[in-house]
């Protein structure tokens, strides 16, 4: 079980600590400076640091989100994934409450952070992590409450009553929700992971998707959702509200939705063939120079505009001078040798091209290490996996039929082209 949680800023400052054990199991703050020294000595990104570290006195788990390290400490055997998952959950909840995660937000709302941590974990064991119950126990800060506290000087964000859901067998939903609006939005959010090898072969093309639901339905609604093509789903993970028997028997999602926004399920669809964008890097080096051309364009037109296209790569080592120009968009080279080519909306009639000459360090005849191009983009209104919701039935919502909205979007996940 966790013994202590520290929140550390990305400059190594301890923002706050939450001790979870007493009786000589208190974790001294010095562990944070040990952790920081360790991180500095590793010389890598905080996000790439080993997530489970055995320090001389404690085992440390850490999750890095939005410039904040969530550090959990323990001295005894426990499931490391449980610690990591919990820290991630803390990060999720905090960012949900505070509208983001950064050092200032944490400091400004430190009391809420304390209150939340206190509800979320007790004696090292997670107590209440269900966002809906938490939201009832501790009201998230809002403009209104802030204004109120400025004007009146007092306002309490702590509920005096225990949320009903704690006793319910569907802890994700309170029983007596009343809404004027009666609507539910289904949002298919997909990320496409593509790897193209240096000889241009498609090594990997798969879609990771989430179905995000925003429900504002009164009463105790019971929903039933089916897909036209459920067989394409390779892997699935479900929100606890989904009745698994139903899924096993008829591949239909049957559930009582939580209130507000939540992730209904996540899925993966593998071995796809169509990629929306191609990127073709060409390098030809001789005599200490290297000519570089990168062509990009639409491969399989998804039917919608491909927006905010960004191509990013690390400049290889041993390069003295580089001159890169492009016929579309802008090229930036950052201090850490990361080159970013932002194209914006991908044109249909024209092929964007980045070209230039790299002058290698004296003594280096030709380039032997080639960069990997990472591509980012976003396509609104379409799910590239072609997963389709067939039907959505809602029962128990009273007289009026609720409004049902559907949306979809695809963005690039781990989309890379090797050269």
């Amino acid at each position, binding site marked *: 079980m966790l013994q202590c949680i520290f929140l550390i800023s990305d400059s190594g400052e301890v923002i706050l*600590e939450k001790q979870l054990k007493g009786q000589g199991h208190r974790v001294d703050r010095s562990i944070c400076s040990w952790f920081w020294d360790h991180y500095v000595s590793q010389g890598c990104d905080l996000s790439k640091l080993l997530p489970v570290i055995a320090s001389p006195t404690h085992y440390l788990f850490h999750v890095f989100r939005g410039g904040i390290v969530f550090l959990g400490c323990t001295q*005894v055997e426990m499931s490391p994934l449980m610690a*990591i998952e919990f820290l991630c959950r803390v990060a999720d909840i905090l960012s949900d409450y505070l509208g983001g995660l950064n050092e200032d937000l944490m400091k400004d709302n430190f009391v809420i952070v304390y209150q939340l941590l*206190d509800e979320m974990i007790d*004696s090292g064991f997670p107590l209440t992590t269900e966002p809906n119950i938490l939201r009832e126990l501790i009201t998230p800060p809002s403009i209104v409450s802030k204004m109120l506290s400025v004007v009146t000087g*007092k306002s309490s964000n702590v509920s005096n009553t225990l949320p009903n859901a*704690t006793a319910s067998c569907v802890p994700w939903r309170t029983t007596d929700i009343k809404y004027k609006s009666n609507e539910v939005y289904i949002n298919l959010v997909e990320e496409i992971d593509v790897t193209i090898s240096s000889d241009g072969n498609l090594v990997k093309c798969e879609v990771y998707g989430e179905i995000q639901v925003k429900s504002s339905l009164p009463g105790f609604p019971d929903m039933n959702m089916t897909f036209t093509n459920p067989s394409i789903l390779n892997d699935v993970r479900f929100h606890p509200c989904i009745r698994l028997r139903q899924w096993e028997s008829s591949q239909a999602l049957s559930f009582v939705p939580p209130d507000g926004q939540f992730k209904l399920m996540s899925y993966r669809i593998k071995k796809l063939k169509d990629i929306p964008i191609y990127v073709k890097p060409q390098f030809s080096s001789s005599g200490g120079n290297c000519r570089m051309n990168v062509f990009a364009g639409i491969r399989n037109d998804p039917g919608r505009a491909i927006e905010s296209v960004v191509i990013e790569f690390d400049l290889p080592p041993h390069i003295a001078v580089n001159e890169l120009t492009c016929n579309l968009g802008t090229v930036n080279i950052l201090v850490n040798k990361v080159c970013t080519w932002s194209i914006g909306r991908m044109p249909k009639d024209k092929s964007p091209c980045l070209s230039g000459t790299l002058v290698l360090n004296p003594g280096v005849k030709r380039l032997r290490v080639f960069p990997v191009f990472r591509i980012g983009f976003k396509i609104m209104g379409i799910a590239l996996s072609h997963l389709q919701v067939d039907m959505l039935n809602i029962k128990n919502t009273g007289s009026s039929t609720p409004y049902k909205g559907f949306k979809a979007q695809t963005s690039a996940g781990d989309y890379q082209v090797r050269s």
Partner: protein
Amino acid sequence: MFQHMSMVSGADIGATSNLVMRIGTDARLYDYPEDADIGLLLDSRYDSENIEAVKRLLALISKGSDVSDFFPQVVKKLACQTLELKKLVYLYLLHYAEKRPNEALLSINCFQKDLSDPNPLIRACALRTLAGIRLHTIAPISLMALTKCAKDPSPYVRKCAAIALPKLDDLRQEENVSTLEELAGLLLSDHSPSVIGAAAAAYNSVCPHNLSLIGKNFRRLCEALPDVDEWGQIILVEILLRYTVARHGLVQESIMGSLLGSKVDHFTDNTERIQGNDGDFTTSDVCSNKSNLLFLRSYIEGSNEYFPRTNILSTNNDRLDLDSYTDSENKDIKLLLQCTSPLLWSQNSAVILAASSVHWIMASREDVKKIVKPLLFLLRSCCPSKYVVLCNIQVFSKAMPYLFAPYYEDFFVSSVDSYQIRYLKLQILSLIATDSSISYIILEFQDYIKDIDRRFAADTVAAIGLCAEKIPSVANSCLKGLLALIRDESSASHSIPHGDASILVSAIKSIKTIVGQNPSSHEKVIVQLARSLDAINYPLARVFIIWMVGEYCSIGQIIRKSMHIILKYLVRSFTSEEIETKHQIINASIKVALGADEEDMPLFKKILMYLLHLAKYDSNYDLRDRAHFMEKLLVSITNSCPEEDISCSSSNKKLSHEVNYIFSGKFHSKSYQSDRYKVYLPGSLSQIVLHAAPGYKSFPMPCSLHDLNQTQGKYSDSASVLSDDDSDTFSGSSDEKSDYSSNNSNAVSSGMFDSMDNVQNATEASQLIILDAGDDTTKIGQGASSLSTDLEELMSKTSLESWLEEQPSFSGPSSFSAQGFERQASIRISLKEIAVSVKSKVHRLFEPTDGNGLRVDFSFSAETSKISPVLVCVELSFENLSAETLTKLAIKDTDENMVTASQTYQSQESSQIKNMTVPNIFPFEEIPLLNPYQKVKKILQVQFRHHILPIKLVLLCCDKKYPVKLQPDIGYFVKPISLDLKTFKNKEVELSGVYEYTRSCIFTSHIEKLDHDDNNPVSGDKILAVCRKLASKVLSSANVFFVSVDMPVSAKVDDTSGLCLRFSGEILSTMKVCLITITTEGGYSEPLNLHVKVNCEETVFGLNLLNKMVAFLSEK
């Protein structure tokens, strides 16, 4: 990805309208917590001002300052009605309660009131805080509150009660244990799933060994599993798995079961079936079989990771027999599998991993495939969990490569992965590669070699070697690729002088592995490499090539012919080489000379002699020494050919034989790849950090739990039996370990007796390293000693751990107290061991010369008298050394004593009468006859009037009286009293000041012992030996209880400072407690400085005892 978007927007807003955002937040309080008078605010009548004050205090706490001075003021605010304030006060209170225990008691009344509040939220908060205060003084109150809340109508309160159980358990109060266990049982049988999850966590910390508690609820718990909250699921799944293993054992059809040696036919059945499914995988499946047994063993017995597992395998294969297996039709197991399979779809990655491990252990080989896809899907989650999952997949794929083989594409590396993740993926890929997938994998690898991270590229090259070794069909193409790579790299390393040569080295290493599989067919490769020596100037790379040249010098004609040129080249470059290359050149030339034809022999000999001559004048002393040594060793070969010279002495012949043997390449150094054999339960922390974390529990012995139908009243009995069993198996296994280590040392020492062997041994040791250079260690220049020290370290660690029962050494004393429970167990073990070595000192009572050849010896016995507590038991041994039979032997009190006793009886006051009514001695019955050389032992119970003055007695023998004096031993005026560490420390505090006496002395007797065992290479064992010696010395000088030992965990291995032994006893006559503490200082090889401390209420007794102890300890 949603997170990501909202985060960005949050940051944007934060940047643009920072000011707006901060209005109405607590920013001001965090930034300037002290710009208001907190004390004044606390005393205010308004809740809002109080709240602000406590918020300021919390801000100060989070900045790391100590604001406990406000404690009394804050505690007063508990009585308020605002929940917000109350909760804030609770936060503050919990932070400081331990520091201010007295003031914390003031708050109890408020808690009592809140605990009966109608609002469940308030009840729950009060309970959480009350239990969280964790003070011994309020433990009874907390326990009462807990008992009440465990039956609360609100499930939320019951859940909080379940979570509060471990808090009380932390206090480690003996008297509460049974109540806590009962409560855990009650909460486990709760009908609300949310309570069950928390109760499972409580069970795990309160009574993890009481499996019968699970047995009663097993079916219900399984059925409730899907409804339990995710965190509870993680823990409950693990408990249920543990229970099924203990109750039913393992499943025959499972991976764990199929490797059973005695069930050969069953096993072949299985392989055939697998063959049918995945044609590729027969070989690896079979060979993984052995490793599976290792897995099983590590799961059940705990990983004694520092030993090559094969030894253990061969020695006690029979311990897991058929009885520990059941079949898959078992109802409980079926139910467990059925209820855990939906968890594989959970959103919580830890739940998926926990459910996967159940299937991994229990499901049949076909069904295990179920876990593959969910585990692979986890690789799409956040980076930290990805790493943990990959670590576990790596272990799984070691045992069952075919499980993951079809999904090799999931392990292709992405450029965003961190180095560790990439490395793990490479490892897994090389494990699961099959004939059908290898071509794709090699294609991928070719891309990785071009990666910007050169360390990763080097790892890829090494992985290619592994794959080629595993799948011989691709060996040739890999070889070609590697050779091209070497050409490429070696040309590049010229242009970049400080370039990274790691790729080059691992490419050559990979080639070495491939060539090693079938050397004769790769003759040309070796020649080609030798030719490229000129272009490769990185020493380590050269070392490997030269090794190969030497090793395979006579495998074919081409290499034989080119050997002249190669050797001549090497000799020419010898003086300019690095030291490790020089070593290797000499080795190679010896090998060449040994394996040469008769016609080439003279030339090679000449070259060798020249080389040795060069080496003898090298600037490096190691090389010089070695050259001298080699010359002596090779004298038979260099001077005369054994075939021709028949007069060659037999020892010379033998020597040449040995030399041939040593350099023939038949040695294969055992590489200690301990990581490969460190297997812990899937999903555990120990598996990630690769050592047993404190509190790590391997599975109970299969089928160790039999009695299921026991009644409620009985179960505490069975629990104790169970835990006894546990400790037994544990001490058993630790015995095994120490056995092993002693065997090993014996083997080493026996080798040392023969001087001839000695020389050979030494060469072997050094040669091991030389050959090792060809293997996969990169440390070349190190001498033979480095390997053995590594080994020593490993060994000593193990023995230390066996002593501490798997407590990893680094956790230090602080975690010791965390593990109080286990600690007791470890003491039990140590006591057992030490009790064996305790020899009470024997004193002479009656010399044979004084009388008729009768010798009487006496020693003090650790037994305590059953007649009266003031009596000391003395063991007398009568031995007849004469040739005549002795009769009527007895011991009586002297008349004089009788008189004084009666006198004192008259003069003393009545209060002492009770004491006085006990006579001085309780004699044993007369020995009627003692034959010549017969020995008889008797127990005499004596009451000594004084603890220094001897008592006069009369020895009767053959109707003659001999006066004897019985010298008392103060060490036996106490009897052992068993204290736990906590009570010991409390008593120690009580008996401080005037009741505390200390002296220092020098302890040397461990040195002779260490010298005696000098052949034993275990260095850390010496601390242990010191500790053991000290303990046995104390225990043989005084009749006390061995309470605990604190092991020093310092950076210096040879430093015993900090070793602290504690003993406790009770004075026989006055029943007063007497504590002895011994701490050491100094390295184990020197005389130790001991500080002996005695805490005792009786000053004179205490001082005398101290003097006695010191005298005894400093005695040689």
